[in-house]
């Protein structure tokens, strides 16, 4: 059965690679305003094929048949541009848009421009940038954006952090559906295959109004390419190899339509990865291998005024955790930290042993929309997700095959929204409902669960309005949520307690963008949001082997089980973000400043130690305080000449516990990256580039005080501490060479990248591996990509 699937897969590949056709023309172009400034995000339609111009206003439509076509370009604030194009060969066009008197009328086609606040600060990874990140995990890819960092638990577990916030304070939208995994744990990475994405966008301001409380710190939007209305077979095959952990990657996507049903289209996509142990410059990071198998399928129906899309995806992974990072008690932890090398180093292997994680995440999405004459567009979105997480420890008595943590989370999301577009204003009115059910398989683990079973039901309503007046774009929104939560937990004498809670909370936003001229604009966005503490912050209870610490929720002080809702305060966050964007042909810049004040900020604080049969353990309890996170991100791009481009990125974040006059833990230090790219075409070899990038991480000087594990039993202070000092800063050297060669009627893209070329031994403050081992050493990545009949 499975052999047959593979045979079919390979046959399909051969047919598609060999397949010839006459409709192979390409129309490339750029969309600019009358002063030549690029217009990113413009909708470009050629017949039924549609694409969106990228951040440089550039678009590419391929596999066009020769003949006369109608080219239509739409962009907010400009008149529709329509022209007839007679295509006989590949052609390049420049579309100059005329400003519109009646503005905001033409935002449509996909309604995507409404998905985030236009006045909010967002950054997108372009297709070129994504190509250079193929093979990386989602979190690692996002790290390329200034203001986004990652919290790592070893070389394969990356958790995105936006402006110092992560986990339940940021939201990930996977193809329009909020990702519902076990995101509360800092060693839990998002369960998403980045190969599905043609666009990765990060919204850095609060978007709680549209998406609810967990978007208070920002939103990560993972979008697959649109299903193109085409009859043609299309697709791409990506392969990659990473030298450091000898990882092989194969990912492909195919798409097409149906002969007798012109409005229907489909896409199938799959990724397989297998890698062994990573290596630092001096030793193997034993038991850091991973394997992954992901697949997804989409089926869409689209007509002028209505559409339907069904999408299903499956993400499955097994990830090894560095053997030396698993500790039995404080003495073990002390020895691991003080030793220069991990205590367990074995020769390279692909084998993954305990400790490890296995995660399966299944998603089903159904989206439908209908344009209602005179009212607007009605969108209905349903998402069902099933997340299963197993964590395996090193156990005694032949229990290594039994997970130490085994959770199943089932969730249902329903979003209904009505978008409207009028002459001077546009907006959206919506309703969200979210039902979640989490169970622990304690029968299988034989260990008290870290977070209890629970049932959660959240409903919210929101309204957002935008208007454009002269040089201003104004936006305002408001939201109300109700949450019902039932927890099923046990006391230490194994009595079942089932407290229930009812939370009511609000959020609001105000935004204004001022256009100084066609090349400079200033975005301002203020988001106020409230968030009831997450189940993990309320009822966590147990020993964490990675940190050798006992964690207790807000409602489990000293092991007691509290049930009084009066004891819980909602987090209240106010985030203001201001972004100055400059975009001219030679120079572009994106500079943002933000300040985020969070009242009742939930954090882990040391509250003492506890003696057990394994010796003393520190007890960390969730508490609430007032926090400030403020900082700035900058991105500069300068086209020195037609062939040479310089890019600079810089992020700075200052975080403080205002109430306790203390620092916050795991706040990214100042980091920057300087890079120079040289591009040229050599004969038939196109898009040839050489890129040199030099990322620099400074030391975190505002790290918590250091209390080594052996000193913890005697520590009586209440300041948060870290078990090792912040590592010194470092600079790496990365290089990449890439080009495209014609193959058949299409292109084969080849690139070779070298990371950490000087093989520097370093430790990153944001990587929990730093307690035990150096980070990953030199790594070469080879990528091949063949694109056939791709539509954008």
């Amino acid at each position: 059965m499975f052999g047959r699937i593979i045979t079919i897969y390979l046959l399909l590949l051969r047919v598609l690679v060999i397949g010839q056709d006459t409709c192979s023309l390409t129309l490339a172009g750029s969309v600019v305003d009358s002063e030549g400034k690029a217009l990113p995000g413009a909708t470009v339609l050629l017949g039924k094929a549609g694409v969106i111009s990228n951040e440089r206003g550039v678009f590419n439509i391929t596999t066009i048949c020769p003949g006369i076509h109608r080219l239509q370009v739409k962009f907010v604030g400009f008149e529709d541009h329509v022209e007839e194009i007679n295509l006989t060969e590949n052609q390049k066009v420049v579309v100059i848009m005329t400003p519109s008197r009646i503005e905001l009328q033409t935002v449509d086609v996909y309604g995507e421009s409404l998905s985030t606040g236009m006045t909010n600060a967002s950054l997108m990874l372009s297709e070129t940038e994504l190509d250079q990140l193929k093979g990386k995990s989602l979190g690692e890819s996002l790290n390329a954006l200034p203001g986004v960092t990652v919290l790592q638990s070893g070389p394969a577990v990356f958790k995105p952090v936006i402006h110092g916030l992560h986990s339940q304070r940021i939201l990930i939208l996977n193809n329009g559906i909020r990702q519902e995994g076990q995101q509360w744990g800092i060693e839990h990475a998002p369960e998403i295959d980045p190969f599905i994405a043609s666009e990765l966008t990060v919204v850095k301001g609060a978007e709680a109004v549209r998406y609810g409380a967990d978007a208070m710190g920002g939103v990560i939007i993972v979008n697959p390419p649109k299903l193109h209305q085409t009859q043609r077979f299309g697709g791409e095959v990506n392969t990659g190899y990473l030298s450091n952990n000898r990882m092989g990657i194969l990912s492909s996507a195919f798409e097409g339509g149906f002969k007798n049903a012109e409005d229907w289209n489909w896409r199938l996509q799959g990724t397989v990865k297998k890698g062994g142990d990573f290596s630092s410059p001096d030793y193997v990071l034993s038991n850091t291998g991973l394997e992954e198998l992901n697949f997804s399928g989409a089926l869409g129906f689209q007509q002028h005024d209505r559409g339907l899309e069904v999408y299903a995806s499956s993400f499955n992974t097994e990830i090894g955790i560095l053997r030396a990072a698993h500790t039995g008690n404080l003495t073990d932890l002390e020895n691991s930290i003080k030793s220069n090398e991990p205590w367990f180093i074995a020769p390279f292997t692909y084998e993954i042993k305990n400790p490890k994680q296995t995660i399966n995440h299944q998603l089903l999405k159904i989206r439908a929309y209908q344009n209602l004459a005179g009212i607007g567009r009605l969108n209905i979105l349903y998402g069902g997700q099933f997340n299963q997480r197993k964590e395996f420890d090193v156990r005694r008595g032949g229990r290594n095959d039994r997970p130490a943590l085994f959770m199943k989370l089932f969730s249902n999301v329903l979003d209904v929204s009505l978008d409207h577009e009028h002459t001077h204003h546009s907006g959206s009115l919506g309703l969200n409902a979210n039902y979640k059910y989490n169970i622990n398989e304690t029968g299988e683990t034989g260990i008290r669960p870290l977070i209890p079973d629970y049932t959660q039901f959240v409903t919210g309503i929101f309204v957002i309005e935008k208007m454009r007046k002269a040089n201003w774009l104004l936006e305002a929104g408001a939201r109300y949520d109700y949450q019902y939560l039932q927890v099923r937990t046990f006391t230490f004498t194994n009595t079942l307690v089932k407290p229930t809670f009812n939370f009511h909370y609000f959020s609001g936003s105000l935004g204004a963008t001022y256009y100084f001229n066609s090349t400079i604009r200033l975005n301002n966005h203020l988001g106020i949001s409230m968030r009831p503490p997450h189940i993990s912050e309320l009822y966590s209870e147990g020993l964490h082997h990675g940190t050798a610490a006992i964690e207790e929720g807000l409602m489990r002080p000293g092991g007691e089980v509290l049930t009084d809702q009066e004891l819980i305060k909602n987090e209240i966050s106010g985030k203001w973000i201001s972004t100055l964007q400059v975009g001219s042909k030679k120079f572009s810049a994106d500079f943002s400043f933000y300040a985020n004040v969070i009242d009742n900020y939930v954090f882990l604080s040391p509250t003492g130690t506890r003696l057990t049969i394994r010796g003393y353990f520190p007890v960390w309890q969730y508490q609430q305080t007032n926090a400030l996170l403020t900082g700035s991100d900058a991105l500069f791009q300068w086209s020195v000449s037609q062939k040479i481009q310089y890019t600079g990125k810089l992020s700075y974040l200052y975080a403080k516990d205002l109430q306790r006059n203390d620092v916050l833990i795991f706040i990214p230090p100042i980091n920057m990256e300087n890079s120079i790219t040289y591009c040229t075409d050599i004969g038939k070899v196109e898009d040839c580039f050489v890129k040199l990038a030099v990322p620099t991480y400074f030391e975190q000087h505002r790290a918590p005080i250091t209390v080594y594990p052996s000193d913890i039993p005697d520590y009586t202070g209440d300041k948060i501490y870290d078990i090792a000092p912040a590592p010194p800063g470092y600079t790496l050297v990365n290089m990449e060479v890439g080009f495209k060669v014609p193959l058949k009627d299409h292109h084969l893209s080849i690139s070779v990248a070298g990371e950490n070329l000087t093989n520097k031994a370093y430790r990153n403050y944001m990587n929990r591996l730093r307690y035990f081992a150096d980070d990953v050493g030199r790594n070469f990545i080879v990528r091949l990509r063949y694109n056939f009949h791709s539509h954008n």
Partner: protein
Amino acid sequence: MNMINKLMIHWLSRFFAGSTILAAVLLVSCGDDPQPANEEELITTLTVTLTSSGGAPITMTFKDLDGSGPGTPTYTYSSGGNEAILLTSTTYAASLTLLNESVTPSENITTEIEEEADEHLFCFQKTGLSGLSINYADTEADYIGSGVLPVGLTTTWTATSESSGTVKITLRHQPGTKNGDCPGSGDTDIEVTFNIVIQ
């Protein structure tokens, strides 16, 4: 190709198993109360028994019934005081007993250690006890038929002169890396310190 094939089978089977569970969760879900975890792997009690040719056996016990929970552990010495009292010029045969008393009936963890004798090692670390020497009295072969490395479930304690201090007993779990060194590699399953007086 074979590798990919195997991987596909591996994950596809998981996917279908997952889907079945999903359907089951959908149908059954909501309503059933969870059962408390049966923590059969927990070690709650460590007892050291010292026997000599003359006199009653000396015992010292550490007991913590709730694992990482908030309950305060207790030390019990057969002397009735806060330390074990050994006599000078006496040789004691020491044996260790491990129990899980959080479950009923209580479980004997000593046998678990015996069955995995090649993965476990007890370490004995003295502080201030100049008049005491502790030597291993067993090897892996005593429990699993082969292996020359010590385990430490039985040891010989030789008290020579008057002194007082502590003995820290550590159980090291060293699957695949045990070489007889203390503390050596691996994880700690037990770390308990007893007070000892030699008079």
